């Protein structure tokens, strides 16, 4: 098992070691329901993929498989070349996940939650790390407040601090903006913007097209368990992309399109 997250020197050495995330042929079935149907995701260091799609498209299942929380029916996921399987938990040091739920203990304080997860990840500098992370998400004054007494927005920010506490290489975000007020969204956006530091790889599932386009380097639209379209985010405008998104979701654009070779997206 690894002793802890990779440090700066290790990160530098890994930079040219291939993709951070490599998922091939992912399929997930729930009985007769096909939630994810043969998706490939390959992302290098510093790439930020936003996955859009309607409810029931299989986005959360995809994200859960990328994080090792859900076993694919078929296909494989590798993070930094390590296959995510049940035999070894060392790769979990490299992944930080923010879900619909915060994974927080409501009876513990904000500081106690971070200390608990820090110990699970084998972190040794928690006395310095935890106050800094709480400060960054604007919760320094709430360090000793029990999570049950925090607002939804505060819990979401604390959950983000928890997900990033161990400096993961791969960050997985599932609808991080859901239910947040504008000020909480602004704090979250600032923290997510900082994730685009060229070192971290991010996959974010969201319905918020504006935030997704603003942060992402690559975009995918998932429909009925498959990527209906993937492409670069830099050339897309929100208005044009919103129309295109609805066309893809409603099936007016063929699912075979992908990136440069696919249907043209209004910029």
């Amino acid at each position, binding site marked *: *098992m690894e002793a802890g997250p990779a440090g700066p020197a290790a990160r530098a050495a890994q930079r040219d070691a291939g993709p951070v995330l490599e998922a091939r042929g992912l399929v997930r079935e729930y009985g007769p329901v096909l939630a994810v149907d043969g998706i490939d995701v390959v992302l290098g260091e510093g790439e930020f993929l936003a996955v859009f799609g309607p409810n029931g498209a299989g986005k959360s299942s995809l994200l859960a498989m990328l994080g090792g929380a859900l076993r694919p029916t078929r296909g494989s996921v590798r993070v930094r070349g390590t296959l995510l399987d*049940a035999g070894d*938990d060392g790769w979990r040091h490299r992944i930080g996940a923010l*879900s619909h739920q915060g*994974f927080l*203990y409501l009876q513990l304080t904000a500081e106690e939650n971070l200390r608990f*997860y820090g110990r699970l990840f*084998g972190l040794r500098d928690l006395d310095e790390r935890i106050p800094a992370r709480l400060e960054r998400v604007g919760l320094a004054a709430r360090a000793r407040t029990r999570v049950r007494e925090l607002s939804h927005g505060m819990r979401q920010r604390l959950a983000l601090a928890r997900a990033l506490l161990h400096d993961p290489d791969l960050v997985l975000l599932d609808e991080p903006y859901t239910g947040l007020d504008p000020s909480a969204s602004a704090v979250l956006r600032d923290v997510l913007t900082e994730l685009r530091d060229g070192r971290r790889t991010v996959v974010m599932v969201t319905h918020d097209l504006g935030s997704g386009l603003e942060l992402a380097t690559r975009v995918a639209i998932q429909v009925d368990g498959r990527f209906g379209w993937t492409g670069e985010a830099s050339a897309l405008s929100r208005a044009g992309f919103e129309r295109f998104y609805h066309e893809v979701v409603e099936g007016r654009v063929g699912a075979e399109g992908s990136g440069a070779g696919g249907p043209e997206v209004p910029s």
Partner: protein
Amino acid sequence: MSTYLTQVRAILWKDLLIELRTRERVLAMGAFAVLSAVLFDYSIDRALVAPQDVAAGLIWMTIVFGGLLGVGRTFHLEGEDGAFRGLLMSPTPKDAVFLAKTLANFTLLYVVSLLVLGVFMLFFDLELGTSPATLVLALALGSLGFVALGTLFAAVSSGTRLGETLLPILVFPLLVPMIVYGAGATARLLADRPVAEVAGHLRMLGAFALVAVAAGSVLFRFVVED
């Protein structure tokens, strides 16, 4: 301290701290123990049956029924904000999670077991005999085996539609050795028989606890992983 032990200690600390703040499980188990002893006391016709003759079996059944109230809710609070999924997504080995949660449950149940013994001594006019330490050891070994099985099957039942209702159906058949040797040792010690007479019972309780902990450590990952 190794990472493994740090992880076990972190989960144990977290579980006990949450229980200290909520007192949810220990209060339910303690209240059940006291009320059961009162009802058992009324249910015995002392003109026909000496309470001391049936006390050992009733003590162990009270521990089992009361313990299920607490052990069955092992994963209840974990599910409130998806926290258990967060725990499973950490690099903590699953057997470390199992051991920590078993130790937390053992701590709670052992306190309740001692309470049960005290309450029965009060209502059934029992005396500890000359080997109270051996009696306390028998309760510890039996409780450990019980919570190891209970923790494993609480994980199984928490993922089903039947939930806690399923737990006794899964666990009770496996508790027969614990009840036989636990009640046997307790009856002899309360009757002030020599400790050598219960050495075999203690060995069987120890073996039961060892097998339950080992089996739980191996099987837990298959229960909690998708």
